[in-house]
């Protein structure tokens, strides 16, 4: 059974069909990239899956359970963590507190109003682990707003990892990074994913990043899936060539 299954998922904005009849199945443990030109509907697809937007039509299933139409926090509680295309952080709080709040999100005692020292300690441990995984330990006590853009992108990934998700959805983790920063970020991500166990869906613009990280690729064009397969299959696909990869190889 696929971990995530989208069936004829559709999202319209007035006359515009941003996500059009998308069928996609992501197997457990898979690292899947969703690619496509600007406006192809990649982020909208993310938003529909994670509950930020309601689908106009179609359904999404996670672990066999229907998640389309659930509120955002309910989707997250089922084990789907995501980052945003535009960095979403708690700017005034320290990097550690950013990640700690994320780590606390799925713990039993998150509602504790008085004390709650155990939950705080447990989430802090998990936060420190995630910070180390993303090599951000030295910024633990720095307010998030003072980090460089590249480190902020990684901090958001650390937050998602700290949620202990089953499915990790990264929306352009290298967006706006310099070439060196991108290389470093890809290295860190690759090491993080080498641990295995995580299923990942990655939206990415940078083809090099995609071919370095992904095992499967879904290509979106004007909201529709025009190709789906291994990187080699996708590269060979004529339709993809004309729509997107033109001049890549």
């Amino acid at each position: 059974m696929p971990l995530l299954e989208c069936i004829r998922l559709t999202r319209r904005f007035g006359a515009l069909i941003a996500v059009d009849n998308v069928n996609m199945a992501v197997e457990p443990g898979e690292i899947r990239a969703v690619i496509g030109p600007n406006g192809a509907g990649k982020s909208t697809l993310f938003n529909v899956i994670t509950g930020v937007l309601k689908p106009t039509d179609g359904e999404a299933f996670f672990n066999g359970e229907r998640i389309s139409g659930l509120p955002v926090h309910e989707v997250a509680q089922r084990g789907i963590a995501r980052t945003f295309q535009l960095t979403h952080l708690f700017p005034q709080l320290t990097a550690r507190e950013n990640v700690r709040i994320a780590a606390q999100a799925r713990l039993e005692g998150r509602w504790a109003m008085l004390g709650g020292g155990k939950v705080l300690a447990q989430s802090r441990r998990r936060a420190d682990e995630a910070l180390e995984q993303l090599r951000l330990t030295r910024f633990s006590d720095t307010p998030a707003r003072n980090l460089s853009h590249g480190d902020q992108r990684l901090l958001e990934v650390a937050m998602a990892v700290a949620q202990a998700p089953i499915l990790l959805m990264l929306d352009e983790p290298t967006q706006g990074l310099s070439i060196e920063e991108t290389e470093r970020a890809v290295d860190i991500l690759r090491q993080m994913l080498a641990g295995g166990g995580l299923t990942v869906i990655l939206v990415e613009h940078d083809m090099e990043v995609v071919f370095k990280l992904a095992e499967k690729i879904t290509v979106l064009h004007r909201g529709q899936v025009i190709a789906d397969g291994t990187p080699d299959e996708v590269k060979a696909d004529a339709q993809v060539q004309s729509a997107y990869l033109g001049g890549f190889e």
Partner: protein
Amino acid sequence: MRFAYGLAIAVVGACLVPLVSPNYMLTIIIEALIWGIFAMSLDLLVGYTRLYSFGHVAAYGLGAYSSALLLLHFHMPLPFAIILAVVISSLIATPIAWVCTRTHGVSFAMLTLAFAQLGYAMLYRFKEFTGGSNGLAGIPRPAGPFGIELFQHKVGYFYLVVFCLFGSYLLCRSLVNSPFGSVLAGIRENEAKTRALGYNTRAYKRAIVIASYGFGSLAGALYAPFAGFASPELFFWLISGKVLIMVIVGGAGTLIGPIIGGIFFIFLENQLAEITDLWPLIFGSVFIAFVMLAPQGIWGLVTSTLNRRRAPAGAGPDPEDVSGASA
């Protein structure tokens, strides 16, 4: 450790006040401390969750009228009446919180204001019950429990208020430092992200609105039996503005700041009212001065001064350490 010392000094200092204060001053001091509780309760919303309530007077009025009616009709021991008034007010606040937290920003502010005005209007609508514009007079301060007469006298009442102030401060402090409190900080910083992490932010906001009304109603519930009367003035919308100013001038998001802001303004008002009728003008000028020159408020000024004085004596000039300590 530093906190424990500060708290101990504050408690001892407060307990010594009746020994040195003339009797008439004690009246003002009690009123100031009650306003301190009230302003602190609003800080939970304004400072910690960034929810601007323009109708916080509803909490005060609900507490005041609840305790007044309980004491007039049931003649129960004073502490019980106050506790019960807080419970009743919190229950009434629950549907209010439910509705208000469906909105954001200005709509939230306007809805809280609307509910406060609704309460004000109901005082006139149910005259038989609330006394209408005459209010409720002759609120007793029955002895007890176990026939304790302490709270019937002004000095005893002072200690009751001090106890409530420190008790609710410690509760609020624990609340904002708890896992729950950290979610409030998340909502303040970026609500969409907090939701995306898996927190039902609306439920958290509901809870903090109810808690804030609860602590605010404690202030009202203490005031009515102290003054001996409850009038519609305790439900008047201007009070919402006044307490909001106290929070901002005192230092939002610090709990101690708003307590100081409340005490400071009651004293200021009291002293100025003796000298000139123009005291609201000065009140307003102080507010403008703080917003423009010291947006971190009184307590923010105090802590940044203390940190600056401590920094050279500290372990070393670590700029990250300083920013961490003041955050």
